[in-house]
């Protein structure tokens, strides 16, 4: 939302002249009818002229601000169609217990809990990390409810072990979570129990954590707001004008709305409500999905999407494949939901105008997803909603044309589409044959489908320029290793993926994604001509100078427009959010 309520409708008064004219640029428009231009004119957030300065002269009025780009490269804003600033940053900003010792003894753990309780008086939850089993064994103690009760009987306590396989909770935490001997185990984990009495011991294994998380107060809105604010700040200063925050709940939507209301939501955000509670509990999911999501709506924010986890990931071999994993006789991975569940939900969400963003890493998962969308199209006709296949790590060749046929977005995450020690180790689990066709941008594009990019931070870097370069090279951006993962695409294709295809994925192709008269002024000015040099070790070093969203200057690296009275929301170097950017 901009500074004032300057909304336009059919009979709104419209000025005669441009608010701003950017001239003398090398402008890559992404409009096939007019691929290049020198100048753009902006009024009321929209482009009213794209061409050369002489053509736009008539739009210059007494109050028009003119800015000379001095030959700089200008293009539509970037689209990051899948990322998680909240998951990456909120844990850093929350004030949970951090024992701060690699392998604390039970005594050190006890002291840390008591110190935290002293510093945080009251009867609230004590939640944090880490403990390790072996120091308990060495001390001749048994970790669990009894031990924790002896340290802290009155307040609920939940502590994760360093392997993240076990959570230790006390009796108060079990009580608040409504867990006792009659509680059954979840499908993806279990409660450790006394074998003779059946009573929970206070050790929650794997997926059983979620039962405790559900009873805990959610992450505070203030923490989430800070995480999103930093995420948006980074994205604006790296030229992102539209993004999808995949996995939200009520708290997260509230945090985004607060940012929006305060004028700091400088990226267009589509937020996808979590379908499952596997990342965090989503309270009042159905109220949100059935209509309350509209409460958060603005030009910058919508929650008209839902996120599903159809299958797992490569490392634990839980991606759901069409044929068994290498060296396995029958293990194909795991589908988290039944195909019937998936189909009914896709049909239902589609009918409600809600985009389904489906995590599908294995080719079996995306096959099931495309089948479900086919059923939705059969029952509902084309609803106007393009559903999104997230990650699309492996796609069956026979499914490549179905993205176009069913109007489904293929989203690829750069976590491992180029060789790094992490990617080469982790992704090699698929086997060489599958590795050759991993993240098949080219296959989807050549079959006429819409492919987009999602950084999936913190799984991969949130820097979109790293993603852009490696889409073209599919090589390590930091060295000269000749190894290449999968099929590269051209610079032109990659730019389309990261701009106009992103707009299609947002449902905003009529208003953004290219620089054309009538579209929103969502554009960026950068420090280099992307076509001037070979992409490797060049594109990812790009610096963004200016970022505009709806004609609003949201980022101005050197405050060059401040003298013209245009003050950007963000200025200076991008914030440092990662070790290696």
């Amino acid at each position, binding site marked *: 939302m901009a500074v004032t309520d300057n909304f336009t409708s059919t009979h709104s008064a419209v000025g005669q002249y441009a608010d701003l004219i950017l001239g003398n640029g090398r402008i890559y428009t992404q409009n096939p009818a007019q691929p290049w231009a020198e100048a753009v004119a902006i009024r009321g957030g929209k482009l009213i002229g794209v061409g050369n300065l002489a053509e736009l002269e008539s739009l210059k009025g007494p109050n028009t601000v003119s800015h000379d780009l001095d030959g700089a490269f200008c293009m539509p804003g970037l689209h990051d169609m899948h990322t998680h600033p909240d998951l990456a940053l909120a844990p850093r900003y929350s004030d949970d217990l951090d024992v701060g010792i690699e392998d604390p003894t039970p005594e050190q753990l006890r002291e840390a809990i008591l110190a935290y309780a002293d510093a945080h008086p009251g009867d609230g939850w004590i939640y944090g990390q880490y403990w390790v*089993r*072996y120091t308990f064994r060495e001390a001749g103690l048994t970790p669990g409810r009894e031990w924790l009760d002896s340290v802290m009987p009155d307040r609920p306590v939940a502590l994760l072990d360093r392997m993240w*396989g076990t959570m230790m909770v006390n009796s108060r935490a079990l009580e608040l979570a409504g867990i006792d001997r009659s509680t059954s*185990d979840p499908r993806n984990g279990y409660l450790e129990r006394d*074998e*003779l009495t059946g009573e929970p011991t206070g050790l929650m294994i794997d997926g059983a954590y979620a039962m405790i998380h559900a009873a805990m107060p959610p992450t505070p809105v203030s923490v989430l707001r800070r995480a999103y604010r930093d995420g948006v700040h980074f994205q604006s200063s790296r030229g992102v004008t539209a993004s999808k925050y995949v996995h939200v709940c009520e708290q997260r939507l509230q945090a985004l709305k607060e940012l929006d209301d305060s004028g700091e939501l400088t990226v267009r955000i589509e937020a996808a409500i979590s379908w499952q509670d596997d990342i965090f509990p989503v309270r009042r999911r159905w109220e949100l999905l059935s209509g309350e999501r509209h409460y958060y709506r603005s030009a910058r924010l919508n929650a008209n999407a839902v996120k599903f986890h159809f299958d797992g990931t490569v490392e*634990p071999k839980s991606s759901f494949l069409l044929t068994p994993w290498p060296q396995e006789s029958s*293990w194909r991975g795991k589908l988290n939901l039944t195909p019937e569940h998936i189909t009914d939900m896709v049909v239902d969400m589609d009918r409600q105008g809600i985009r389904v963003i489906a995590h599908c890493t294995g080719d079996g998962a995306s096959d099931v997803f495309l089948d479900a969308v086919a059923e939705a199209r059969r029952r509902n006709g084309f609803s106007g909603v393009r559903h999104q296949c997230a990650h699309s790590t492996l796609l069956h060749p026979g499914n490549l044309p179905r993205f176009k046929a069913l109007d489904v977005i293929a989203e690829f995450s750069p976590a491992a589409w180029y060789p790094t020690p992490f990617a080469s180790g982790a992704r090699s*689990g698929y086997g060489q044959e599958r590795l050759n066709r991993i993240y098949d941008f080219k296959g989807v594009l050549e079959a006429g489908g819409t492919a987009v990019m999602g950084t999936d931070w913190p799984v991969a870097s949130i820097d979109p320029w790293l993603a852009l370069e490696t889409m073209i090279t599919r090589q390590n951006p930091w060295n000269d290793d000749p190894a290449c993962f999968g099929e590269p695409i051209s610079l032109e294709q990659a730019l389309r993926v990261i701009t106009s295809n992103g707009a299609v994925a947002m449902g905003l192709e009529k208003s953004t994604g290219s620089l054309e008269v009538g579209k929103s002024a969502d554009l960026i000015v950068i420090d280099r001509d992307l076509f001037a040099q070979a992409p490797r070790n060049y594109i990812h070093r790009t610096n963004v100078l200016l970022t505009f969203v709806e004609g609003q200057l949201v980022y101005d690296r050197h405050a060059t427009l401040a003298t013209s009275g245009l003050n950007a929301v963000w200025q200076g170097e991008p914030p440092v959010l990662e070790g290696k950017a």
Partner: protein
Amino acid sequence: MDKQRIAVTVVSGFLGAGKTTLLNRMVRRADGSRLAVIVNDFGELNIDAAIVSEVTDAVYSLQNGCICCTVQEDLLAQLASLAQLQPRLERIVIECSGVSDPQRIVQTLAYPQLRSHMQLDMVITVVDATRHLQLDGEYARLARAQVATADLLLLNKTDLVSPEELQTLRIALGPNARVHASVQAELPDALWLDAEQQAHTVRPLTPVATGDHGEMFSSRLWQASGRLDIERLRAWLRALPSEVFRVKGLVVLGDNANAHWLQHVGSRSQFSPATGEAAAAGMRLVFIARRGFEGWQVLEQGLSECLLGAD
């Protein structure tokens, strides 16, 4: 013993400690019985699996990554399918990667979908006597985790260290550890194969040699009618001396007189419900202890004090 469930032995230990040697011994020793081995090699070459495959076909090899921390769901599925094999397996041996914490596998075995098919019999950690105390940083922490999770420590390559070094090691491994010293990862049958089967051939209360390592271990059978108090039994189990490696058998517990299979290995006890028929013959426990153990009377005394009505 609890014949409905497949016994699972987990073998852990640092890289180079002698796990593969031990595994080869176990595979050879189990010749003819229904044994499956799940091997997990670190690195791409998979040399270890190649060696083991020569011994038997019943080798299940996960060639990449680490069972404990990267292929857990995979392991779950693999174990579930092994549980369905006919004729039924008697034992599954799982080798942990040298750089992993066996706790992960222990937790996997307790998953509800596996619990009714298999039971963790014991975790054996092979400790390299020449290197254990030299490990540092993350390696030292991993080695500690491997030692702490173990029911039995096989202290290997003891011929390569001095008696003083051996003594330092034993102290470092802690007073509660069940330690067996070896040179080439020799593991006496009495320590890992079914204790009750061996005891069937002996008369009650008579100390007898057990197999090829008779000079090292002795076995005793305890029998009684009546019931045991649960909390007193737990306390008695916790206080078992470290010379006692195993206690296995059937107990009748508490006021409700529920029959349970008890298996105690190292310092870990497991109970599982038994049928009334199994309990008809009364309570019986088989002990495996180090040869020369002199605390039998104290043990028996302690146990009879757990009997309900024996206050």
